[in-house]
């Protein structure tokens, strides 16, 4: 379905001929999502009708108004990570926000940064570190958007001390689906970005839940995000060649990889570490991911995993703890507390991570979140994730336990990759106030039996969430998922459809992966 010529011309007038295209090759480049291949056998998703590169909020606003006028659906994309960024149907134009890439403000004393959607986390963090600050970087990696409204979930390796996206948002500039610009909180009153809530009820309540709306509720064009103290140097020199960089970090930033003898002891240790507020990161990086993180190719990764398996997988459940301090005394205190907690809960430090060079490399990988893709996709297998709802630490651990339990039989049958069974990534939030965990699994997309096992496991984990009160999984997207979980969760889907309809009366903000409103 070609775009109405008048609509195309009107859009071209806004962004200029250089910033709009309907060339098939360009459209195919946007339709390419490798993750799709595992499901459909074809890495290409649906084509958009056109791709536009708006350069400003004003551009976006006019584009959205034109879309309303011509009843053309639009979907915004920032850095993109997966097929959920693509259109769910025909007649959709893509707004690629890559020209909106400015760090608008860093307010060091008020501890926030204002960014446009195509500022990536690596870029923002590098600027922040010059000021002794850092930000939450989602586990997908530092190449993702720093706007805390784009990622599906928003938790990252340092969320223990840097919280997560939904709770880091301050003021937001938001082009609503009808083309009006909403500026939340203090921004709407014209006094700055420092607060995203009010006057009166906070519209952050409909902006997102613990998941983002995946482009289905207008376009977020700027947002302020809280930032946090970084105890390390302003600039960290690195040596070596990619991906084997070794950073020069001070000795008062450290890391330990600790394995506990049981889920119970692991849970207990998490609570203790949270309450004692010693950790910059308390990051449940499973041994499989640790091995892939520290090595430079898949073969090396598998070899290292075999090497550390007896000390980790075979002994219990592991966590990576990063400690950062501003003084030697603080560092000594935190190390002492960690040792005590480890001793009280029967944990053991992994010797590999006690080696200074390995340790520093690992710290840098986690603080910079540079290795998410390496840890999950390096084997070029199909990676799936389940669970991922957040609440207490114990709840998060129970998600991982259930995930491992359900997964084990497929590994034993050789249908899923033997990643140690417990391959759940997760973290404490806010020094133990909450926790997050998602169980990852790897299948071979070229093997129908393996593919089927992955699908069946996905169904089993979804059913476990419903039957065992383990939250709404992060993979629940779109009408099918929400219509399944909504009736078990206060009919939340019906309420969301109501406000989607109220904000998007013409249904132009493409929302197949969010929720749609029947005509």
């Amino acid at each position: 379905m070609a775009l109405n010529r008048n609509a195309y011309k009107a859009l071209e007038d806004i962004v200029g001929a250089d910033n709009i295209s309907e060339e098939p090759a360009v459209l195919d480049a946007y339709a390419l999502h490798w993750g799709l291949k595992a499901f459909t056998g074809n890495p290409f998703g649906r084509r958009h009708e056109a791709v536009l590169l708006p350069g400003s909020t004003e551009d976006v606003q006019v584009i959205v108004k034109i879309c309303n006028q011509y009843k053309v659906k639009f979907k915004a994309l920032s850095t993109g990570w997966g097929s959920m960024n693509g259109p769910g149907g025909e007649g959709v134009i893509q707004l690629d926000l890559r020209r909106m890439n400015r760090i608008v403000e860093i307010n060091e004393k008020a501890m926030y940064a204002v960014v446009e959607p195509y500022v990536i986390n690596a870029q923002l963090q590098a600027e922040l570190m010059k000021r002794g600050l850092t930000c939450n970087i989602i586990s997908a990696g530092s190449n993702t958007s720093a706007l805390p409204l784009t990622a599906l979930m928003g938790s990252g390796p340092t969320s223990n001390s840097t919280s997560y996206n939904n709770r880091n948002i301050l003021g937001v500039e938001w082009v609503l689906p009808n083309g009006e610009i909403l500026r939340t909180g203090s921004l709407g009153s014209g006094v700055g970005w420092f607060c995203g809530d009010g006057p009166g009820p906070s519209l952050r309540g409909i902006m997102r839940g613990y998941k983002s709306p995946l482009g289905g509720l207008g376009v977020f064009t700027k947002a302020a995000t809280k930032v946090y103290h970084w105890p390390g140097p302003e600039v960290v020199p690195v040596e070596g060649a990619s991906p084997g960089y070794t950073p020069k970090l001070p000795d008062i930033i450290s890391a330990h990889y600790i394995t506990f003898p049981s889920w119970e002891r692991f849970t207990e240790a998490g609570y203790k570490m949270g309450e004692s507020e010693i950790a910059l990161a308390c990051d449940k990086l499973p041994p499989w991911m640790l091995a892939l993180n520290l090595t430079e190719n898949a073969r090396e990764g598998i070899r290292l995993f075999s090497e550390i398996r007896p000390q980790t997988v075979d002994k219990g459940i592991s966590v990576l703890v990063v400690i950062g301090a501003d003084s030697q005394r603080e560092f000594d205190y935190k190390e002492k507390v960690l040792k005590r907690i480890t001793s009280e809960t029967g944990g053991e430090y992994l010797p590999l991570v006690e080696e200074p060079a390995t340790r520093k490399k690992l710290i840098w990988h986690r603080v910079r979140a540079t290795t998410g893709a390496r840890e999950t996709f390096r084997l070029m297998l199909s990676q799936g994730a389940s669970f991922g709802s957040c609440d207490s630490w114990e709840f998060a651990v129970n998600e991982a336990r259930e995930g491992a339990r359900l997964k084990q039989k497929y590994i034993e049958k050789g249908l899923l990759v033997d990643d140690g069974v417990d391959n759940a990534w997760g973290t404490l939030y806010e020094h133990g106030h909450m926790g997050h965990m998602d169980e990852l699994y790897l299948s071979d997309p070229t093997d129908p039996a393996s593919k089927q096992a992955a699908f069946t496991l996905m169904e089993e984990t979804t059913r476990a969430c419903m039957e065992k009160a383990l939250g709404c999984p992060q993979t629940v997207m779109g009408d099918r998922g929400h219509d399944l979980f909504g009736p078990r969760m206060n009919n939340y889907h019906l309420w969301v459809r109501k406000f989607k309809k109220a904000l998007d009366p013409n249904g132009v903000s493409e929302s197949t992966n969010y929720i749609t409103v029947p005509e």
Partner: protein
Amino acid sequence: MGKKEELTEIVGSQQVIVNTHSIEKLSRDESFVCPTRPAFIVKPRNTGEVQLIVKWANKTLTPLVPISSGAPHFRGDSVPSVDGAVIVDLSEMNKIMRIDRKNRVAMIEPGVTFGALCPELEKEGLRPNMTLLPRPRKSVVGSVLEREPVLMPKYHWDIIDPLACTEVIFGSGDLYRTGAASGPGTIEEQWKSGEAQKSHAEPMADWCRILQGAQGTMGIITWATIRCELIPNLEEPFMVGSQNLPSLFELIHWLVRLRLADECLVLNNVSLAHILTRQRRGEYERLRDRLPPWILFFCISGYEYYPEEKVSYQIEKLTDLARRAGVKPVKEIAKVPAQTLLKIVQKPSEEPYWKLRAKGSCYDIFCLATYDRIPELIQVMNIAAEEGDCPVADMGIYLQPIVQGTSYHCEFNLFFNPANAAEVSRLRNLSQQAIKSLMDNGAFFSRPYGTWVDVVYERDAETASVLKKIKAILDPNNIMNPGKLCF
């Protein structure tokens, strides 16, 4: 059947109050909103009754005004804006349903007061992130729903804190559980899976945020979970007196950024003197005059593991930071020990409520701002007070860093004699003038009450427009506290 009889059928005759005195008391408060008599007061005892009341109100198009705190009320939100309203008094829904030490959370009904909750939490080694000296009959749920500032900014990660999940009857009459409490599973099944109703967000919305700051216009909360914090093993409180706010802000920035301080707040000499003194003649004035203009109060704490060592390295760090900021933390100012103040702010106010001690009533003007705007806002307020013939020397000021220090709650306490008509009139005029001037100079009124509302929403029409759409979804017949905010 009349409305009273219909309500009686729902809650029983003893729970429907028609007593003239009680009704008269709730027709006004300490603020300047126009008095309006409610028709009845109804006191539900459980969620089922609340839901029936809301459904009845939809059928009869009767306005409902929920209240949970005991009198006195201060902001006009509990005074009906329209005739014929029914006050839904939740004070008898006062059960502490669960205290979960491991997950640092309490589940409570809206009638639970700070006075009732604090001792129960203490038994479990927990404490709430307190607001500044709430009156003992102040509802904890009421306080968190109003986004009242809390004393420990390092535990204030998000402005929604310490509110976590809620059970609410929306204005439509539908029961909804927000956040993790939404399911799947019953609350008991969630407890079994390890959930503690800590996460306030659902998958696609965060309704709790819509209920917060809503002044009862969206629905009626029937329980909420509240984040709690640990009681420290060791506490070292300090005060810093100063003429110079920027130097205090510099120190506060680092105290919060490095997570050194638990409680951390600034009072001017007027507010601190009112907090510390009773009604004895001359005592307040003497203390006010002895105190420096600004007093930063903060507490460094140690917990389970090696508390002395933790406090020790933190004090070493503090000493360095204070030196760089050019200020000196001390353990006593004007013969007021920091330890005394610590004990005071960790509890609700003693009776009489501290804001009423001086002159019988108090009108607060409060807003949010970044640290750098605050000196200017104080100047603006001083000028407005002088022009309005209100004595600047008697104006209390409370500055509270919030949300990890990203902004400050800035509160002006205007103590007045409610029997003095001229004084009341001056203050009423001052409040109107001051709001505009404060907004012009960087103040954000995230919680607009009473007469401030029009000015605030005039500057943010789009927020008002979207809020009205949401209100129409949750409360289609506009029965919940109509006339408040932009509704």
